[in-house]
């Protein structure tokens, strides 16, 4: 498996972004809190910068104002000539690209930690682009070891050949934290505390790396996107049913061919017609209705992640 280069310098410019979706409240409240009291974000070798990514959507307690900010960090949007008619999130993406990027440049931030919630029963989910990102895989592994009680799962969102579009892609590296279930517009104490503890553990990992800790190779398990499934629809495109009770809340559990996935309003069951077992995630996520997604199918991968070498160069062998 080919791996991406790992950092050879300490990570000093780190950002924690909340409110990328304005109604996902754990990150909104953490970012607001840290903007006033940033103590949690300080480590000996760096201080992470809190960012309220979509302030207009946050003020309105909506996912976005004009379009999904977290799908807007593509070259096309970031480099097109600015116009007063641009959607709010396109303008905001350019501002964030100035602040945290520019994307794919040497001046970009070293790392972005992006905070999200889902209405799906995803528990603690760590979102990385792909399995080749050795540094991110080590960070995820570190969280799994530090927080065994959370059963952190790793979700790999990037499909082959797809351009990165999420906020973390502006920095040299990054991951997303996705905690659920939590309704949009609701702040639950349990998820708020868990998110806060996870951010602390992420910053601790970066600190360990900056201090010269090496991390050994390991066998990783992750869930990689393989497709999406829409709700049953009427001829007008309206919902004709919803997620079956036997699938609801079963994120990351195996879904086998022939198992019920939807219940129509007429009372019929719709069965899964795929040919192989998949692992559904983001089951019944509120924000994905408009995207035509009832759940995302993943396949479960196991793969080897090479060691993350220490920043301090090992003494050269004596000639």
């Amino acid at each position: 498996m080919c791996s991406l280069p790992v950092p050879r310098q300490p990570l000093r410019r780190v950002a924690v972004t909340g409110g990328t979706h304005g109604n996902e409240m754990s990150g909104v409240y953490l970012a607001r809190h840290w903007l006033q009291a940033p103590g949690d974000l300080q480590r000996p070798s760096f201080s992470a910068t809190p960012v309220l990514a979509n302030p207009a959507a946050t003020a309105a307690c909506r996912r976005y104002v004009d379009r999904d900010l977290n799908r807007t960090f593509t070259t096309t949007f970031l480099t097109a000539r600015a116009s007063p008619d641009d959607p709010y999130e396109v303008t905001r993406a350019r501002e964030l690209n100035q602040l945290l990027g520019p994307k794919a440049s040497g001046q970009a931030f070293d790392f972005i930690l992006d905070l999200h919630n889902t209405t799906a029963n995803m528990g603690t989910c760590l979102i990385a682009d792909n399995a080749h990102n050795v540094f991110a895989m080590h960070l995820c592994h570190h969280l799994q070891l530090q927080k065994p009680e959370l059963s952190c799962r790793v979700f790999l969102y990037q499909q082959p050949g797809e351009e990165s579009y999420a906020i973390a892609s502006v920095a040299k590296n990054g991951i997303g934290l996705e905690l659920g279930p939590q309704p949009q517009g609701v702040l639950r104490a349990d998820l708020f505390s868990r998110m806060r503890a996870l951010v602390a553990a992420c910053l601790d990992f970066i600190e360990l790396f900056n201090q010269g800790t090496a991390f050994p190779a390991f066998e990783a398990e992750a869930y990689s996107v393989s497709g999406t499934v829409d709700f049953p629809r009427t001829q007008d495109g309206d919902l004709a049913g919803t997620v079956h009770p036997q699938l609801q809340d079963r994120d990351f559990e195996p879904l086998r061919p022939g198992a019920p996935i939807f219940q129509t309003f007429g009372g019929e069951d719709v069965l899964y017609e795929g040919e192989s077992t998949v692992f559904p995630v983001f089951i019944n996520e509120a924000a994905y209705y408009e995207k035509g997604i009832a759940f995302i199918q993943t396949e479960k991968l196991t793969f080897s992640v090479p060691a993350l070498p220490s920043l301090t160069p090992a003494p050269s062998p004596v000639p």
Partner: protein
Amino acid sequence: MTSHHVAEEPIKKVAIFGGTHGNELTGVFLVKHWLENGTEIQRMGLEVKPLITNPKAVKKCTRYIDCDLNRVFDLENLGKNISEDLPYEVRRAQEINLLFGPKNSEDSYDVIFDLHNTTSNMGCTLILEDSRNDFLIQMFHYIKTSLAPLPCYVYLIEHPSLKYATTRSIAKYPVGIEVGPQPHGVLRADILNQMRKMIKHALDFIHDFNEGKEFPPCAIEVYKIMEKVDYPRNESGEIAAVIHPNLQDQDWKPLHPGDPVFLTLDGKTILLGGDCTVYPVFVNEAAYYEKKEAFAKTTKLTLNARSIRSLSR
């Protein structure tokens, strides 16, 4: 000959409202389904009309467009002169009042069921506006008995200042149905199946009543609103604390003085003051952040209804 039951007129016109809040999806999709295929809500001799009350908010999957539809059915708003400057929901309230009211008139619908969801862990809830309504107490008793062992709670919003002008209040017998927990913008099959059963039992009750069945005296336990509690806030008015983990999801459970209520963002616990045990409801409801309501305190009491029977037809 003296009669010990209250004789009432048979019920003729029933409406089922969904989408009064456009992002509470159970009512939205049940009503849409019944508009296409209403077999399951039809009962002999009864007119049952489903309606999407706030179609614009449903289309945008938002609670409302300009203001909360479920707070504007007061006589002042209903009597305003029609103008383009009126909030969309006030105009819509006037239309609904013409079709299903007018409020407080002989012509109004007999029963209106208004279907809602909450993000709070309230289970199946029936909302009662008037503690002396024998017919609805009997209906709620019937629904509770039919749903058992699934719990079904009754929330009484009778209060000199906290009662609000609901969409259903144009009917002679207004019934609020509230099922949770369900995030806004999400449609859960389990919640849908529960709400569907509540409507089935309610319509069966009306049918039995119209057929002349006598319902003997009964009693139900209800939770009556006492006061609303806001989140602790900082000097700028921003929320400074979350519902405490011990209170989260504990709707209807006793909350004693000294029990934790909030957890501040810097980690301090805030306890319940006062000297009486209360029963919290609408704990951490998403839509109530803007109404400055973290939860409502209720007190538990028993309501009795006399025997009822419809006048023979």
